[in-house]
């Protein structure tokens, strides 16, 4: 199974997720690259998958043609000591 076979809207690189939890995704690199009905807009909820095949959810914050910026959901509260 390849990433393109996994039911998700976009692929993402976890190493590019910033401190604001926003990551840049390219539609052309994702599972729905050939789907002309896929038209994510700011505010839309999407699913993302990475090379480890872990599927995450997020919300579109910005779109510029092929490029979509998504704020990924972070699970679990950070309870790290100061």
């Amino acid at each position: 199974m390849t990433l393109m076979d996994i039911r998700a809207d976009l692929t993402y690189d976890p190493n590019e997720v910033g401190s604001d939890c926003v990551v840049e995704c390219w539609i052309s690199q994702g599972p729905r690259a050939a789907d002309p009905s896929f038209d994510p807009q700011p505010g839309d909820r999407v699913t993302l998958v990475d090379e480890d095949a872990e599927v995450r959810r997020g919300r579109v914050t910005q779109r510029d043609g092929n490029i979509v910026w998504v704020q990924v959901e972070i699970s679990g509260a950070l309870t790290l000591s100061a």
Partner: protein
Amino acid sequence: MSKHLELRDGTIPDRLVVVRLGKNTLNENALANACERSFARWSVYAFSVLEVPNGDFERLARLIPEFSQRRQFLEADGPALLAAGFPLLPTLKHPHWSVVLSEPTQSQFQRVASHFRGPFDNPLWVGRKG
């Protein structure tokens, strides 16, 4: 259209350990896609890594919440990457760095990947907590 490449100011730490989140994120597909995005943005073939500030993983997790979401990561020494001909650029916000490749080829991907150790289990992975 590519943008102007802006680098952070400041000194390079004496000991620079970088991690690549995930266990498969150095495979050919991941690096090819990362290089494509980087070239479109900055006209440089590169992929992202994160500095472990002073070896402090908790600090990395506070700076980058995504770190605690990852079960495993790969690790490399910055000086070793530099010595092997892979420049490290302090791009975006700390602790983000870009590892530069001369070209996005399979041989370059394999060569740079050979400098990473792991995968290691992430001690701060949220799934580890009850």
